[in-house]
């Protein structure tokens, strides 16, 4: 498959050839579906919820057993409180994957009616710095990590502080499910999440995992954190988003990672940035490298990104 991808990049003059490539990648993803449903991450043999969400998004419009049993799998392992665990067999504690599942199920048009509990779980979950005691601590005693604890989002797991990626995913999920219920609360939390993202942007633009500054020094942004935050901050006129896009545009020029380039493609597409074509070329080039193709998350994200560029839907789209 790698050789085929490689040939397509260099033999076709026009980049609008993706259909064959996407089908190849989708077939590869289907073939790696687990018997019980879903997909494993990395070297694993048990289904990972996050990886399964990406796999499902990649096959969302395909008639496929793998797609159908992935949906069944996700619905079966939902926790009683409406949240989702991190992987098949995990403890019944919810985590950030709750947001990614909501995004995936909606995108795949899955029959899912029990969403109110999931929304409630997300609304009840917040970064630990949102508690008055920790706000006080971060404002007075612990100033090494500089951020405004009044502006909190969502943690990876309950009981810890807010981080960029889970905050952005949850904002996207809540935005997409906004008409369902508790609209006022959802809007307030999304607004607070936006403030948190703006507060923690890196000075040069973009986002690291959490704060932009630690011990007075600016941290280096990451492509995936930046792209995912930009998907949540979909307002093209937001100055922090503009700065983030500017950073992303420059950094994805030399990037060779399928995973990061796929996220960058989705974000640049949403922000209608001129660097999109170059990013897609880099993504195709990276897909031809052997090392990246082994990773099911990266493969799925590549399909999602290419499909989105083709106009076949962006699962992370908000405000539509």
């Amino acid at each position: 498959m790698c050789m085929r991808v490689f040939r397509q990049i260099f033999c076709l003059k026009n980049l609008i050839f993706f259909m064959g490539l996407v089908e190849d990648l989708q077939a590869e993803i289907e073939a790696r579906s687990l018997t019980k449903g879903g997909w494993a991450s990395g070297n694993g043999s048990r289904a990972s919820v996050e990886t399964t969400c990406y796999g499902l998004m990649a096959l969302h419009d395909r008639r496929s057993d793998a797609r159908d049993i992935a949906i069944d799998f996700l619905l079966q392992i939902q926790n009683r409180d409406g949240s989702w665990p991190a992987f098949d067999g995990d403890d019944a504690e919810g985590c950030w994957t709750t947001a990614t599942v909501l995004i995936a199920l909606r995108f795949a048009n899955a029959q899912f009616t029990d969403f109110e509990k999931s929304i409630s779980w997300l609304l009840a979950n917040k970064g630990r710095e949102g508690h008055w005691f920790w706000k006080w601590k971060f404002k007075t005693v612990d100033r090494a990590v500089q951020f405004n604890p009044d502006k909190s989002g969502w943690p990876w797991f309950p009981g810890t502080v807010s981080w960029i990626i889970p905050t952005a995913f949850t904002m996207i999920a809540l935005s997409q499910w906004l008409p369902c219920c508790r609209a006022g609360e959802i809007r307030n939390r999304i607004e607070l999440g936006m403030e948190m993202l703006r507060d923690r942007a890196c000075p040069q633009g973009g986002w690291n995992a959490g704060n932009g500054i630690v011990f007075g020094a600016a941290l280096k942004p990451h492509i995936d954190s930046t792209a995912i935050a930009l998907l949540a901050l979909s307002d093209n006129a937001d100055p922090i988003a503009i700065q983030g896009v500017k950073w992303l545009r420059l950094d994805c020029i030399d990037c060779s990672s399928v995973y990061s380039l796929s996220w960058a493609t989705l974000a640049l597409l949403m922000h209608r940035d001129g660097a999109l074509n170059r990013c897609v070329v880099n993504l195709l080039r990276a897909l031809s490298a052997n090392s990246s193709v082994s990773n099911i998350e990266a493969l799925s994200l590549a399909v999602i990104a290419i499909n989105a560029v083709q106009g076949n839907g962006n699962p992370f789209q908000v405000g539509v």
Partner: protein
Amino acid sequence: MNRRDWLITSAAVTGSAVTVRFRHRKYSRDLRPKQSRVAILHADQYSDRLDELVYEGLRLFNLDVRGKSVLLKPNIVEYIPGKPVNTDAQLIGAAAEAFLRLDAASVVVAEGPGHHRDTDLLVHETGLNDQLRQRKITFVDLNRDDLIKTQLQANYSGLGELWLPRSVLDSDFIVSMPKVKTHHWAGVTLSLKNMFGIVPGSRYGWPKNILHWAGIHESILDICATVRPHFVIADGIVGMEGDGPLNGTAKELHTILLSDDPVAADSILARFLGSEPSTVMHIQEAGRFIGNHEGVVL
């Protein structure tokens, strides 16, 4: 009670609480060897010459790794050009080669970066990918491995159990390969702290924030009591001092430290960085059950 009295009383109460907390035995087994051994190798720079240097250094220990699966756990945090925050790729490659020459059945390099979700990118940017490809060594992303729920063999953090990667638990011989650095919260980040990287991001997030809330020193002790590194190869050729793990300035130590005891290794390395090991809580406490503070220098 005035403000001064209140502060003194608070300090006394806190001090007593900490003392009481550590007086009780919190570990289930004593892992200390009868004697610990250390070798301090001199190296001016990262080069191909490390292959022979590390191999000869390992031979001093007469390690029995024949037929065993060896897992090298370097410290790969973030790629920041010009800042020596990661274990150098050349040294990792040299260590892998040396264990294969000592007839290990297999050698893998495994890491679960704390902040960075794109492990492929990090491995590429740090130059590790080139080393691995050149030497045909497999890399395992510990953030995305199969996980096994594991009872912790000490109870400093109160976590009780952690989901840990199968690749680590199934390995016969684990080598912690830290970058020698100071650390803002932990004091130093050496072979014991390096084991934070085995805790999987897919289960605990990026970063593994639960460990910070449970206490960094306490979590280090619980993890190392459960998965004690069998050996240490520390990258002190160029270390880092300052507000680690990410911010700081290069400190040329021209040293690779090898040891069969992570506590002995960290005690010596802490001194290299200007810290007394007794002032670093996890090193001090680890001397009670994980290893010895002193070792014979080979």
